[in-house]
């Protein structure tokens, strides 16, 4: 099992979610984060263009069984890109996941994902 963590642009959440559902990944956990990368995002403040060092992003956390890793990644890649890819489109991180437990049934392992 793997834990896929993706940092994406806020406006792409809907598309990514849709792409995941299309690939039969139904369970995700998302949160608001702020990111600092290559991207520079321009805000206006009283006529001045301001480049904040921290830009709002969305973080997805998806636990998947091994064979679902690639479908998940490709769904995210599909949904998260602006055009052919723009700076700031984000990253996907894949971590090993040792155990997964469904609280409701206490079942463990792959079936609990």
């Amino acid at each position: 099992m793997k834990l896929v963590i993706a940092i994406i642009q806020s406006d792409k959440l809907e598309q990514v979610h849709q792409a995941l559902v299309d690939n039969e990944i139904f369970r995700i956990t998302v949160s608001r984060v702020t990111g600092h990368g290559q991207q520079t995002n321009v805000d206006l403040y009283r006529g001045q263009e301001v480049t904040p060092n921290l830009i709002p992003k969305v973080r997805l956390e998806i636990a998947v069984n091994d064979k679902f890793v690639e479908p998940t990644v490709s769904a995210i890649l599909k949904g998260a890109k602006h055009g052919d890819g723009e700076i700031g489109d984000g990253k996907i991180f894949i971590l090993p996941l040792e155990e997964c437990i469904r609280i409701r049934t206490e079942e463990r392992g792959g079936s609990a994902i």
Partner: protein
Amino acid sequence: MRAARWVCLISLALLVCHTPQVMAAGHEAAEPVINSGTIAWMLTSTMLALLMVPGLAMFYGGLVRTKNVLGTMMHCFAAMAVIGVLWPVVGYSLAFGRDVGGGWLGWDSGLLFLNGIDTSVTNGLPDYVLVIFQSKFAIITPALIAGAFAERVRFRGYCVFIAIWFLVVYAPLCHSVWYDGGEEGGKGYLLSQGAIDFAGGTVVHISAGVSGLVAALFLGARRGYPRTAMHPNNLTMTLIGAGLLWVGWFGFNAGSAVESGLKTAQALTVTQVAAAAGALTWIIIEGCKHGKATSLGMASGILAGLIAITPAAGVVTVKGALVLGSVASIASYLAIAVKNKLGYDDSLDVFGIHGVAGMLGAILLTFFVRTGDMPVNDHKVPHTIGQQLFIQFEGVAITCVGAAIVTLILLWLIDKTIGLRLKQQDEHAGMDHSLHGEHGYGLLNLN
């Protein structure tokens, strides 16, 4: 109606201040006589009506998604800026200038930039007072429409839309309902028919509701609607907005008495009662149907009650207010249920609440008119309920049809030229970022 009342009530006010002509003659005869009490209340009403703009911004702003909160609030503030300038420049002349269009249009080049009335005082009230009081109605009406196409219009297109809408829909309606130029000046069409619209049921709420409906249908639904749930970003703000609207409505309705006297007190009392009745009814409906009374239901009920009493505030009694408030809540609740069935996207239910409660108030008020407040016909005989009902229906129908057609043409024109609907990408990114380069709640991110 209203203008007519001004004359008679202000004469009464003068009465109280006694034989002013004689008095004034004693001292410099040139000084116009003023009624400080009426002025005090009318200015207070003006301030209250202005308070409705931030109130509405809070109400609407809290209901949209986080990414559109500023854009939605800006719709209200933009009305304050755009109409706030247009009104003194040309709007007042169109609405309250001498009748030149069969009761549908005024014009008086002397009123451009309010030139001619800098020191005018009519019946104890400086003309400026009514100009500015009326300006708030002109500001709030286009802002109301914005709720119908929330979260999906371009700011530039919106500004142009409200500016022109104000000139071609609002100003004529306002003229027709409230302009009374006496012998020489002519009279607004609906006013001359004897239609009752105390504080703008047709002019403000029906016209905004219908135009909103047309705009919502014309522009189409928000992307993702209704599949994606579109959660209010801040119901506490919406609730406070509803509270401020209630407070501001006192100015709207009680100020429309254009005096500080009995009629004012009556208008304020029924406004308060109808709002409470509307709110209570809505939460009871929800309590019965879902077992849960929502805060948005409370706010919606307040609004429905206030809207329904608007055309009726000066002419019905407390019992009438209780009925109008309650029935308006029921009707709006049902109208929204129907909307959900039909599936069109009147985002913040401008038609469902303003349109429906406004029409209902304009028509139902007929049954509760206080003896003595029924308009009279040419022979000074008060209308029967049937006659008045017909007139009220006529007013509502003309407003609906007129507003709908003109709004539709206007939308089409703007959409073809500068564009109104937001581009898909911008809609996804949210208006705050794509149109205004800002974020409503910086607090959400570390800074």
